[in-house]
């Protein structure tokens, strides 16, 4: 190494520059196979009147929720509102409480979760039709001074996942097929699954299944535990990327309809909706038009498998669908 201080400084500066370029090059994922831009999509226009209105968008604590929260937040931002994000709040009771006490102004919720967890409906009473479920929840939300917007096209549900090889070996296709086998099988799910009626509790009470063991794990590890052989069964989501991109996993059919599917409703404080004006609802309903099941699975895949950030994935979605320039 040269002992001339100027030469050393120059080398150090060049190395630093190279490092900066290297890092930004690594950060850029350029293989966007676009989703087929929606030719007729409307671009969100920024309305300067909205600039006085501050909106905090929240979300629950898993990938799909992060993506949805980002989509709505970025869309409202494009419409001219002053948007702040408070994602990853926790599960639905925490999100609801944050919404009611004003910590957040809105967040995306599922019809099934709202009806069973907030409004004490039985899982089998949750309508399969998203529009119907939405209408059933409207009055209940209104009583809490909240407004729900019309549902997305896609719906998501908890599901019992298994390795395809193991399912074929044991000849199980539906959850009811587990009867008689369950006491030899281990089930993995989120810590709260133990006491949820749309999770373990429902499987125990409505299907009458007694598993050998239930082990709590972080939601993010739900496929990991199937892969490494620890879990015979794992609670997954029907919109998971891993189900769409690989043949390795299979979900058991919920033949007794204990695990209801829910479309997404953007739920907001009535006060916020009143203050924010018509652009709020228009923007929300516009950006969720593109959220079909394949699209949602693709977005989930980009985060969970390609390891992109939810923020980036949401922004790509808005651009590819033509809502944002």
């Amino acid at each position, binding site marked *: 190494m040269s002992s001339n201080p100027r030469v050393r400084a120059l080398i150090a500066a060049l190395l630093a520059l190279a490092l900066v370029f290297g890092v930004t090059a690594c950060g850029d994922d350029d293989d966007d196979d676009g989703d087929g831009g929606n030719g007729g999509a409307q671009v969100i226009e920024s309305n300067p009147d909205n600039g006085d209105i501050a909106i905090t968008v929240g979300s629950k604590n898993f990938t799909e929720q992060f993506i949805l929260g980002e989509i709505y937040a970025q869309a409202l931002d494009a419409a001219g509102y002053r948007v702040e994000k408070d994602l990853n709040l*926790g599960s639905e009771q*925490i999100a609801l409480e944050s919404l009611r*006490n004003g910590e957040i102004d809105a967040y995306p919720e599922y019809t099934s979760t709202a009806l069973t967890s907030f409004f004490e409906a039985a899982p089998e009473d949750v309508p399969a039709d998203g529009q119907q479920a939405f209408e059933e929840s409207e009055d209940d939300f209104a009583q809490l001074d909240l407004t729900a917007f019309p549902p997305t096209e896609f719906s998501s549900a908890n599901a019992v996942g298994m390795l395809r090889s193991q399912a074929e070996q044991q000849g199980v296709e539906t959850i009811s097929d587990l009867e008689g086998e369950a006491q030899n099988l281990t089930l993995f799910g989120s810590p709260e699954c133990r*006491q949820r009626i749309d999770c373990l509790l429902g499987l125990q009470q409505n299907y009458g299944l007694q598993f050998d063991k239930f082990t709590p*794990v972080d939601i993010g590890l739900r496929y990991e535990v199937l892969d490494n052989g620890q879990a015979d069964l794992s609670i997954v989501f029907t919109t998971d990327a891993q189900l769409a991109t690989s043949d390795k996993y299979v979900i058991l059919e919920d033949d007794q309809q204990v695990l209801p599917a829910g479309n997404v409703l953007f739920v907001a404080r009535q006060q916020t909706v009143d203050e924010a004006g018509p652009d709020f609802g228009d923007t929300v309903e516009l950006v969720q038009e593109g959220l079909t099941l394949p699209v949602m699975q693709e977005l989930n895949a980009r985060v969970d498998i390609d390891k992109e950030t939810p923020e980036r994935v949401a922004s790509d979605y808005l651009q590819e669908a033509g809502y944002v320039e």
Partner: protein
Amino acid sequence: MIAPAKPPLALLGQFGDAFDFIFNEQIGRFSGGEPVGGPEQVLDLAATQLELTGLAMALALAVALPIGLWLGHRGKGELLAVAIGNSGRALPELAIIAFMAAAIGVGLLNLTIALAILAVPPILTNTYVAVRQVDRGAVEAAQGMGMSAVGVIGRVELPLAVPTIMSGVRTSTTNVVATATIAPLAGVLTLGDFIINRNVYGDDGVLAGAICVAILALALELLLSVVQHLLTPRGLRAVAAEAA
């Protein structure tokens, strides 16, 4: 932040609810009729948390103590010991757990290793520094008497280094018992279940969980300070008492 301002007594009310959760079983609002809370569940979860802490600390001591003693005795590797001490604490636990999940699965082994990794840095650094700071005169006298390296370490350096080493052990233990709270995310049910699972246990449960972890940490701290006193050589105890 959570609710509009309440009079001071109501704050006590929140703690009162938390203590009620600890001592009385109750039907949680969203637990599907299953009882939650109560001393049996609390003690069960606390016992698991202690078990996990004990295992992790044992592993950490088995690894860090010999290395720290040897490096300190030789006077080498100061950069290594201090660097590990400073940066080791920055490692994110959940990432370590997820990283190991692919290879060894989730559960007790995974968590023991992850928590031991968290525990090693303070023990290693403190052991190294403690041995370096032992009175050179005592070491030289021992070497002059013909003691082997192992003898010097075991009979001179280690006993004199006990106070500082124990300080590192106590820091580590507090870190570990506090972090063991996240264990339910990796398959081992500890008091963290009350905190993570707010959906089911409610605010009372969250506060109760936090109170219990704090009590556990304080109890361990007290226990270890007694252990430290017992392990400190009598001669040093007088010095320590004088200094106090």
